[in-house]
């Protein structure tokens, strides 16, 4: 037995639609959670509603996941939980290829700070409005995005060109 909040689907998505009727999104589910997908243009409006509407009250930002979907561009997923209503949801934002801009959530959730910095350095996502988007886990002056699928799995020294082997890509 694992966490089964997906059984609440479409309950949570329907609840979001009821209280935020003006925000366009599509709803489906993952194996564990209800999932709603939204355009970057409506993302901040949706998140504000999710946090501030009393009936939804998603006040706990659990996790931010950046994913490289290759031809479909970068995707960012946010896992949210409500301490009051004890329900969870996942919000997915697709960015178009070559334009990985998403509004930052640091104004809404203090927890978003490090999560966004990590996603930014690992995948090259740009969180507009983040106060301090410098590298967190990697060296400050390294400009690589290791979790992109195009980035090969190899030693850092080879990737940086310190060792002789051809890295197979350019910075």
């Amino acid at each position, binding site marked *: 037995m*694992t*966490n089964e909040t997906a059984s609440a689907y479409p309950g949570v998505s329907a609840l979001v639609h009821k209280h935020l009727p003006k925000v366009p999104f599509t709803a489906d589910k993952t194996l564990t959670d209800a999932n709603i997908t939204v355009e970057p243009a409506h993302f901040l409006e949706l998140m504000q509603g999710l946090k501030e509407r009393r009936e939804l009250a998603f006040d706990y930002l659990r996790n931010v996941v950046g994913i490289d979907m290759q031809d479909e561009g970068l995707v960012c997923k946010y896992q949210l939980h409500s301490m009051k209503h004890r329900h969870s949801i996942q919000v997915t934002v697709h960015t178009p290829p070559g334009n990985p801009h998403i509004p930052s959530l640091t104004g809404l959730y203090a927890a978003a*700070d490090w999560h966004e910095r990590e996603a930014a350095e690992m995948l090259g996502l740009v969180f507009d409005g983040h106060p301090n988007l410098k590298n967190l886990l990697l060296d400050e002056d390294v400009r690589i995005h290791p979790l992109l699928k195009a980035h090969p799995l190899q030693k850092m020294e080879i990737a940086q060109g310190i060792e002789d082997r051809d890295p197979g890509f350019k910075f």
Partner: protein
Amino acid sequence: MTVWPEERLVTADAFNTVDMTINVGPQHPATHGVFRMVLTVDGEMVVDCEPYIGYLHRGLEKLTENHDYRQSMGWWDRTDYLAGMACEMAYCMAVEKLGQFEVPERAEYIRVMMVELSRILSHLMFFGAFGADVGSFGTSFIYAWRERERIYDFFEEVSGDRMFPTYFRPGGVQMDLPENYEDRVRWLLGSIRQGLEDFDGLLTGNEIFVERCRGLSPVSQEQAVDWGLGGACLRSTGLAYDIRKVEPYSVYDRLKFDIPVGKTGDVFDRFIVRMAEAWQSTKIIEQCLDQMPKGLVLNPDLPKTLRIDSGECYIRTEGTKGEYGVYAMAKGGNKPYRMKLRSPSFCNLSALKQMVVGHYVADAIIILGSLDIVLGEVDK
């Protein structure tokens, strides 16, 4: 009568001090690993704190994306290296969820028992290290080590390794418990309880310790939720949020235990919540031993190479430091397309700046210690 010359009078605004910058770490006993923070201090008062992490970054997620589902097991041990089994559990649950693999009931009980032993192991480490931070150097460490060594012996017996057991497998656990293991675990529980009582006597009742910790850096519920704190740091504010109860997984819904909560969210509450949690864990292990059925411990129907077509899930477990979550996505083949660790220490540590600013330098070390971070987990 001599008059003090006016130009030598010192007024409050003439007495200016310059802020000083102190670098702590990355190699420093008080940072509990390779963690660095740059403190800006005004006299004894911390006015700014800039944490730097990543010294232990091993590219866990990239490695997992590039290896077979079973090959990656060992790296997940090495995230929260004080409680390897708890990390294995989350990883295995994510793979099982993606592939819809069944786990035999006996294996679930063995898993829960091992995870709770890991929780005690991790909390004991916290009591020892935190006692050392506060000033009882040596004694608390040795107290912790006595019980930890015994638990490690039990891990070694089932898996052959102490810190990084790699005992769990997708679909169960590697092999059944050795002979008489259950009886000896009962004996171990007695020993652990004695150890916890000793700690209680050494620290909880110690006036110096209590004076040092009580009322230090209190965190409100709203702040804790906003900062994304988890585990004992969140529960010490009075919020009874424990994944084992809120979104039960494995066999936790069949076990009876309480969620200890604090009141003010200060450093002492974080300590006392962990102490109570370790007691609860001994209760859980006892129930596991009572309820554990006979039977298989590993699903025999799983193929040699696990191939998963598609799916995504976010598995959350109550790790020893907080919500240990694994986001997993499969898109065919024998490797995951994406695996992301939601590391509880990472989230707790991200609130360090807000917690230490306005406190003394000596207290900043205690506040950092009370977060109970593991750098293997922070840096991935």
